[in-house]
């Protein structure tokens, strides 16, 4: 190998990615101000989100929780750069978001690994887009997969992986480019309860190690409390912020924390906030008179007879 090409390689390898712990100096502040977004539909407009203001400080873990259809995904998509706000602003480190980019990693609810790439090639993808050369990105992908305990699957195609493993690879892939911000849209919604707990643990570990800002969308109250420094509760559509709750639980948090009285108190508070909104989203409380009518039918044994 010639001297120049060696130099070029060293230079490229050096600029490619800062070591994991050097990222702590980096920013990652999310500022959403008076954000509103409406979709154009065949019949007119759908106001999805109105007047949302929220911030995520560098290195903070913040969750958004709200009934389905309240615009959580809409907001995350605007942050990722796929949607333009109709009103207000979405800024990252002071700069308005303009299109998607590798500085904001995103994890989707649907599995989004490329089926035609092996686990390692999936993880390498972001580095490849950055122009990191093959040998170097292979090395980095191997390191990351090793940290995530996925080394033995590096040559598997995603099809051969379980749901939890796919999301784990998805997280590793999003982190490989060294983003300042990680956006997660109900990432564990499709997983079973046990796997979900493990994934939460893995995510917290990675977040603590990398010190990046995380905005996490969920409809699971326990998940939101367990993971977050702060939780925003959203109203039913058109979504706006109903409440902001700080979670003062000490870290690192053990799974047993969900049995603590502090946790349960937070849970109770959030539960009542969300119940109201979920009922609103469903079109209101079930009418008491209707229930009475149903009961009458049961008394007359109509149902029993027909069965």
């Amino acid at each position, binding site marked *: 190998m010639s001297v120049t090409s060696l130099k070029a390689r060293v230079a490229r390898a050096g600029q490619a990615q800062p070591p994991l712990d050097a990222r702590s100096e980096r920013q990652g502040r999310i500022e959403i101000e008076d954000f509103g977004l409406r979709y154009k539909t065949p019949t007119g407009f759908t106001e999805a989100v109105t007047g949302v203001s929220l911030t995520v400080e560098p290195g903070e873990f913040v969750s958004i929780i709200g009934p389905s259809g309240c615009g959580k995904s809409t907001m995350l998509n605007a942050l990722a750069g796929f949607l333009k706000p109709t009103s207000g602003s979405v800024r990252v480190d002071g700069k308005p978001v303009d299109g998607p980019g*590798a500085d904001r990693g995103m994890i989707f609810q649907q599995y*989004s690994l*490329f*089926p035609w790439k092996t686990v390692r090639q999936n993880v390498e993808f972001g580095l490849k887009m950055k122009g990191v050369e093959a040998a170097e990105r292979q090395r980095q992908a191997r390191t990351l997969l090793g940290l995530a305990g996925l080394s033995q699957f590096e040559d598997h195609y995603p099809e051969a992986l379980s749901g939890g493993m796919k999301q784990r690879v998805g997280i590793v892939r*999003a982190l490989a480019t060294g983003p300042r911000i990680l956006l997660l849209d109900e990432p564990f919604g499709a997983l079973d309860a046990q796997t979900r707990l493990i994934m939460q643990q893995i995510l917290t570990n990675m977040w603590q190690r990398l010190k990046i800002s995380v905005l996490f969308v969920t409809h699971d109250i326990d998940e939101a409390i367990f993971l977050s420094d702060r939780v925003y509760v959203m109203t039913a559509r058109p979504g706006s912020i109903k409440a902001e709750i700080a979670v003062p639980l000490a870290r690192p948090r053990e799974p047993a924390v969900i049995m603590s009285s502090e946790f349960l108190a937070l849970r109770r508070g959030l539960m009542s906030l969300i119940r109201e909104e979920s009922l609103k989203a469903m079109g209101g409380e079930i009418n008491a008179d209707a229930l009475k009518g149903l009961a009458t039918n049961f008394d007359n044994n109509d149902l029993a007879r027909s069965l």
Partner: protein
Amino acid sequence: MSNVMASNVLAPAAPLPQAGAARTAEPQAPSRSVRWLHDLPVRSALVGAASIALFVLAWHVATTWKLDLYVRFMNVPTPADVLASAEAAWGSPTFGSHLLMSCRRIAYGFALAALVAIPLGLLMGRFRLLREMVFPVSEVLRPIPAIAWVPMSIMLWPTNEQSIVFITFLGSFFPILLNTLHGMATVDPVLVRAARCLGAREAAVFREVYLPATLPQIFTGLTVGMGVAWVSLIAAEMISGQFGIGYFTWEAYSLVQYPDIALGMIAIGVLGLASSWTIRLLGRLVMPWSPAR
């Protein structure tokens, strides 16, 4: 219905204890010696060979007895006749050159169709204006069978050879185009967004997401297109050719060399089979992630 079947299946499996023990022990010894018979590839190869043998036998019987069952086998050559003419043809250079000529036409026509239809389909899938412009024309031309293009093709192209290649091209063009388009329309949008979030720009998204995501459909199109290419080629050769296996088959009829008709047909079948195998093999090489179909 399903209950009846289930109980039929279950009944012998729940016998008396002593009888059950005897029954499970007994068939084990013979089953080991013929186990290879039940291996799927061996088994299906054997069944396949047997079915072909049966077909040839039926052919042999029908032609040697000169059956006249409304369908007349009097003039149909026997398998032995065809074998003899195959041996003769193998020795002569003309038969080989007919085959070669047809293969060359398929190669040109099909490759050209793939080279035009795949990029066009990919671009049409990506750019709406192009799709809106090309789609109506393609919808009008698509229902016209390639064979109907023969007279027009002869007028369009200076040489006979070019017009036959053009017919072959037309035959495979639309299946490839439409399948590519369909593949593009069904690319999972979340994969596109994931790529964009990882820093992929337009060209990279196209190369790294749309193309591989559409490959399975492209290969479906290629397989169908190859079939239609052969249909179109043979028809074109029969109508306007001077060489080629289609011409050979038609000429055999004109010259009353009946065994050569069957020989031509068999050659066409073998070539068609070989070309679709080639495509399937290529598909497996290009798409190692997709389970073998």
